């Protein structure tokens, strides 16, 4: 396979995952706004921060304002992480690697692009936001489904999966990191239960609120939630789960190519941290330091993969 093709597949699926994650963040922010009214301003700031878009937003628009932020996250071309920017980038990469995709996957991506470009041609009024977010999630699920149903399980599939899960791990780590202070067992919270809305936000952003309730009876605890999102083996957006997928798919590449690269060592190291760690140790070490350390490691792994598999000349 061409290095360029590996790159295209990897980035196509990173961008698709990013589009979906951004949509989820908007949904969460929107929900808080509905239930909390004015108290939601702070929430929107942390949404922007999670999407690494706060600087760009401030530079362009200044004060956080709900309609602006939603528009910025959904469709602003000036925001490279906006849903529309991500979908366009995913589709651009898909065009580049058209020969590596099945007809089903290509058509799913291409139609997603056609539909969203039309739907997001103008600002979306509040009343239509839930429907638009639904559409985005459904379309992303369709692409993933088409990929699962039709793509050969070879190196192409591996690069697509590595892109998906590295992006997902990165996103979950950021969501947690932006909210880490909520989860800290601070003096004020000793003996009191967690701010319900805050923890709900965290779980909703990763589609994990129901799953958490199923797996954990009783009151949610900061440690319980952090542990769930970092270490749970079953939760498909937890850090451990996402990194284990990256590691597995990199393992397949090692088998197929019969070469062990530096990126394999990095992936193993990351996985070992999450496989052997415990939430107690993490809190002892410092949740924020732990998470920002991971975000850096993810970036380093991504760079190393690009080098090892010759994404560029």
């Amino acid at each position, binding site marked *: 396979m061409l290095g360029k093709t590996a790159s295209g597949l990897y980035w196509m699926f990173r961008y698709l995952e990013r589009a979906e994650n951004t949509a989820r963040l908007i949904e969460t922010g929107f929900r808080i706004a509905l239930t909390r009214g004015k108290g939601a301003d702070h929430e929107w700031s942390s949404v922007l921060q999670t999407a690494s878009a706060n600087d760009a937003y401030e530079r362009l628009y200044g004060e956080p304002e709900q309609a602006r932020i939603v528009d910025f996250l959904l469709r602003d071309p000036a925001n490279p992480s906006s849903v529309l920017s991500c979908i366009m980038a995913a589709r651009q990469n898909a065009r580049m690697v058209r020969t590596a995709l099945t007809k089903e996957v290509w*058509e799913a991506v291409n139609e997603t692009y056609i539909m969203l470009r039309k739907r997001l041609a103008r600002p979306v009024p509040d009343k239509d936001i839930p429907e638009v977010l639904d559409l985005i999630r459904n379309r992303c699920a369709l692409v993933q489904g088409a990929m699962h149903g039709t793509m050969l399980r070879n190196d192409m599939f591996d690069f697509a999966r590595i892109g998906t899960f590295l992006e997902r791990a990165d996103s979950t780590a950021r969501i947690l990191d932006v909210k880490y202070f909520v989860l800290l067992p601070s003096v004020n919270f000793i003996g009191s239960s967690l701010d319900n809305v805050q923890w709900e936000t965290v779980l909703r952003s990763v589609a994990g609120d129901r799953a958490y309730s199923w797996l954990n009876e009783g009151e949610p605890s900061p440690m319980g939630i952090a542990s769930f999102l970092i270490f749970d083996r079953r939760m498909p957006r937890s850090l451990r789960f996402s990194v284990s997928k990256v590691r597995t798919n990199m393992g397949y590449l090692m088998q197929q190519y019969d070469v062990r690269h530096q990126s394999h060592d990095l992936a193993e190291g990351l996985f070992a941290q999450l496989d052997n760690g415990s939430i107690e140790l993490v809190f002892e070490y410092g949740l924020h330091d732990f998470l920002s350390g991971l975000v850096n490691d993810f970036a380093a792994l991504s760079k190393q993969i690009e080098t090892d598999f010759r994404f560029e000349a």
Partner: protein
Amino acid sequence: MQFFDEMQGNADGAREPYQAFSNWFEEQNGKDLRRKARDAEHFFRKIGITFNVYGEEEADERLIPFDIVPRILSGNEWSKLTRGIEQRVRAMNAFLHDIYHRQEILKAGRIPAHLVERNEAFLPQMIGVTPPGGIYTHIVGVDLVRTGEDEFFVLEDNARTPSGVSYMLENRETMLQMFPELFNKVNVRPVSDYPLKLRRSLAACAPEACHGTPTVGVLTPGIHNSAYFEHSFLADHMGVELIEGTDLRVVDGRVAMRTTRGYKPVDVVYRRVDDDFLDPMNFNPDSLLGVPGIFDIYRAGGVTIANAPGGGIVDDKAIYSYMPEIVEFYTGEKPLLNNVPTWRCSEPDSLAYVLDHLAEVVVKEVHGSGGYGMLVGPAASKKEIAAFRAKLIARPDNYIAQPTLALSTVPIMTKSGLAPRHVDLRPFVLLSPNGIEIVPGGLTRVAMKQGSLVVNSSQGGGTKDTWVLED
């Protein structure tokens, strides 16, 4: 002017090849058909069969209009055409070999030497080079027009990087999806094995340096090229890599592509880039698109480039006027296909005639393509003709002129029913040491505007599915 309609002919009732279709069509509901025509547009968008228009900033991807009424040829008409095409393509290949070697045709005085030697498309670097298998024109598109029951003319030859074959294939897929029952009633010869034949044909031209199964790649200028869809389509359907210049470099005397596992040699490069953008070291030093040194490897037998560099001279419009001589010189036979009579404006008598008849003729740039820079006299305004006259006088050798042909029509589906529109036909020809293959069909281009004779997609032309019947 009287036009020959391929469906109606000049009599009552549909012509023979159209009869089964016509019967089926009579039973259809016009509303349903128009709905299907709209479905077809959605279908094309979905599969992404779009093109970018040059010169438009932030070029939106556009669709080429598709018309649901097929263009139908009988088996008999087709086999007559293919005999003529085969003869012509063989002669083209022999001509190229000759002008880059002994130049017999120039010595025999059948073509003025300056027309070859001073031609921009003549590549001195190719002198003495024999490409693998002796094949120069691996893929040729021959543009045909029809003016009557038995009158076909070659309007031009495309021996550089003829495009449109993906439309031939996707148009058929679309028709099969929309009207499956129709294909039960009419025996249409399939075209879907074109990519397989193309791959086989290219592999048969592998270079000396290739051992084992040849690795083929399609070389594209990139996703911003107007024909990018076709490049990816062909690579995908052949099951070969789609490569850009940046994916290639010279490694150990071979042209190699950068894969996830290191550099791997490519044996046959089906290039969809012009000569100028092939190799910045040997040709255009300003090009960022090419592969430095690829031409040296080519000359040393390390890689096959299809079509061969320097082959463009054979489809040059000034050379075109000598095609009857070329066919006769190399095959010893009379040409089976007619050339359109052509005035070379470089010749004073011809120029004088053309200037006197600008309102009646079609004038083309010698090196032009895509319908740009041409004058269709009968359709042009006085002002346009005056402007063109000035250009023609300033650089007469840059132009040729032809009589305005009474292009045949085939109906298209309009809001008010069937209406005749002018068409041409581009069959695709594959040439390899194993012989010539012509897929039964081709690209029918149709001028969507009433009365228009310009069928180019860049000028608003559309396409139709082309049927060759099993007789």
